[in-house]
């Protein structure tokens, strides 16, 4: 694997002008991983600007965790290149990375503060510093009272918080969360979103995988959509949404008139008993000419709404109906 070449932005199917982001926390090219002959990840390209919140979206089994594990060096790709914080060997810069796996786990006999210090020590932090910082973090997030409690004596939520804080104890430049909202109640999810925004505001790059689009829509400027081991879209959330035209809902007093020619061909009205009509269509052009035609043509506008496509619609459009259905099946939890 040649990881020494500088990245060639043209190789990526970006949804924005990636060349504007010269400071990339992560660049991955054509990552491929097979397990027992089955392709789990098939040519994934991802580039994450430093200091951003980046979401990897996809249903379970799409290849999100495998991609993250390759980025972290837990497993090596069969082919392709990865560069994390400028390094080709993620373990060499492990002290600059924090990772919260999907399957949470801590040693049950450890006290909270020791568990945090242990993860810090794994990431190169002196144990005493880890304990001190662990106590500070627990206090900061309102969990100071469990600092000396064993993990086995904690509630699931408390243990999850301890692991989350352990992920951050060494002040990493890059934090990777694998399905971080999974298993959290709505309040905890809100807290976590706030924490992620805070990290990004402080300059930390945050990457998370999720199958719940609402989180990505609220948090991310950029996303990668992954389905069937491939990344059909990678770029700005707004770009993903702009792939679909805005939806127009129009109510008029008159059902017909010369203004009808301003509507997209084939737009059929629902005639109302009052003689007016309802129209639903995609806005293919600019909104101003449409408005002018409606007003000057005497359509008698009673209601008009123009809605930009949501991330869900964009996901359906990009990843396909099957992936969207899988996503919905996975996402039967509060958001």
């Amino acid at each position, binding site marked *: 694997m040649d990881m020494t070449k500088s990245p060639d932005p043209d190789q990526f199917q970006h949804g924005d002008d990636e060349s504007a982001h010269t400071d990339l926390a992560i660049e991955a090219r054509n990552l491929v991983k097979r*397990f*027992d002959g089955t392709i*789990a990840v098939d040519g994934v390209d991802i580039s994450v600007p430093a200091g951003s919140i980046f979401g990897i979206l996809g249903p379970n*089994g799409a290849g999100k*965790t*495998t991609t993250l*594990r390759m980025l*972290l*060096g*837990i*497993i*090596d790709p069969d082919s392709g290149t990865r560069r994390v914080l400028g390094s080709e060997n993620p*373990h*060499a810069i*492990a*002290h*600059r*990375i924090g*990772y919260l*796996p999907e*399957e*949470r*786990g*801590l*040693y*049950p*006999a450890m006290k909270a503060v020791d568990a945090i210090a*242990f*993860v810090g*020590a*794994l*990431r*190169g*932090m*002196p144990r005493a*510093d880890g304990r001190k910082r662990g106590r500070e973090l627990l206090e900061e997030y309102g969990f100071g009272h469990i600092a000396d409690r064993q993990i086995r004596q904690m509630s699931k939520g408390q243990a999850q918080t301890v*692991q989350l804080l*352990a992920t951050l104890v*060494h002040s990493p430049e890059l934090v990777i969360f694998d399905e971080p909202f999974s298993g959290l109640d709505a309040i905890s999810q809100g807290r976590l979103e706030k924490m992620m925004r805070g990290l990004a505001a402080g300059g930390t790059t945050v990457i998370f995988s999720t199958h719940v689009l609402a989180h990505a829509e609220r948090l991310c400027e950029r996303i990668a959509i992954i389905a069937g081991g491939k990344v059909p879209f990678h770029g700005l959330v707004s770009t993903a949404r702009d792939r679909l035209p805005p939806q127009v809902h129009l109510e008029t007093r008159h059902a017909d008139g010369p203004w009808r020619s301003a509507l997209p061909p084939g737009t059929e009205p629902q005639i109302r008993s009052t003689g007016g009509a309802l129209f639903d269509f995609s806005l293919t052009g600019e909104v101003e000419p449409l408005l002018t035609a409606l007003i000057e043509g005497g359509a008698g506008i009673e209601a008009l709404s123009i809605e930009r496509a949501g991330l869900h619609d964009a996901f359906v459009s990009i990843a396909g109906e099957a992936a969207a259905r899988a996503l919905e099946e996975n996402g039967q939890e509060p958001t």
Partner: protein
Amino acid sequence: MSRTTSAASRFWRSIFVIARRDFGAILFSRSFVFFLLGPLFPVFVVAMAGGIGASVSGKISNPKLGIAMEAQEAKAFVSARDRLAQTVPNLPELVVIIELKPGEKVMARSMLDRAKEGSPVVALLSGSLASPTLTGAGGQIDAWRGPVSLIAAEARNPGAEAAPTVTLDKIVTARADSARKRIRTAQAAQTLLFLLTMLLAGMVMSNMVEEKANKIIEVLAAAVPMDAVFYGKLLAMLGISLVGLSVWGAVGLSIMLAGGQIPSFAPPAVGWPMFIMLGVTYFSFAYLLLGSLFLTIGGLAATVREVQTLSMPATMLQLLVFFVASYALGAMGEPIEWAAILFPLSSPFIMLARAAVSPDVMPHVLAIAYQAGCVALIIKGGSALFRRNVMKSGPAPMKKGLFRALLTPFAQAWSRSS
């Protein structure tokens, strides 16, 4: 936090972090007390068995030879036995059962049959000094045939053919005797090494199960190379084993000193200090070699049950290694010895035996380097296998079975090559 440390120092620090956690977790757990008490259980069982055995055998110990002869001949026979016993060891103990009148006969078989249960008399001597008859169980009277004949001859002609006195000229160590005793030392060292590794190395097999059960393995794997996790775990368990050995050794030595029964062995060829040092080193490597293999296999096991199932073949493997090394001890310089040295798992055993019989130190330096290399190779392979089979996402690992997991890389390599 230093961000400019070298890869090597980061690696060693990672090992230390893992080892320290494991070492502390085991050392300060309640189960460690049971670990320390572990060797007491077999000692207790042996003592119990010995006590029961002694009680049972006490009743039939010192089997005695009953005498049923004419009074004069019986007395002469007993006197002759006592005289001979001063120079000839292990003569049968005698009990005069009946002194016969001249011409009187005895039914030896029926007398023995009527003997009370637990009677020490297991055979009967009847007839005359000129023509004695031994009646009793086959094995016993075969063993007494010669001594009875000797005593009878002495009884008939007291002091007639007194044995000449043999002058003893003792030397400290005869060459042949010294070599023989060193082999005994080597055997003892091998056996001790085997017992210790068998006792301790198996523990490693279940070592990864905790991390997998607690799902912390991914946190470890993301933060440090998997090799470091393996090394850390092995070193922690080695440390625990050495703590155990120190405690057991100190207790055992104290008991032996108190009892004044210190077993004596011929000094090994390399001398005791070097031999002890090599013993600790070879124990460490025997432990690391077997441990790294067991850690790999145990790491691929998905459940505690699978680990338990694997314990039996693991013990058999250790026995096999021990037998190979023991056999090679009797064939020094022959191909079997070289094979035992080159086969990583038996190498520490045969090399420790070699230290007892050969004074050369250089081969040990080479052997230790070789064994260290083998440990590194096994760990490298084991951690790669672990990453390949356990750290994949999606379906639960090991659903296809441990053996398939072990064989898959080889099968894939085979299919690529063909």
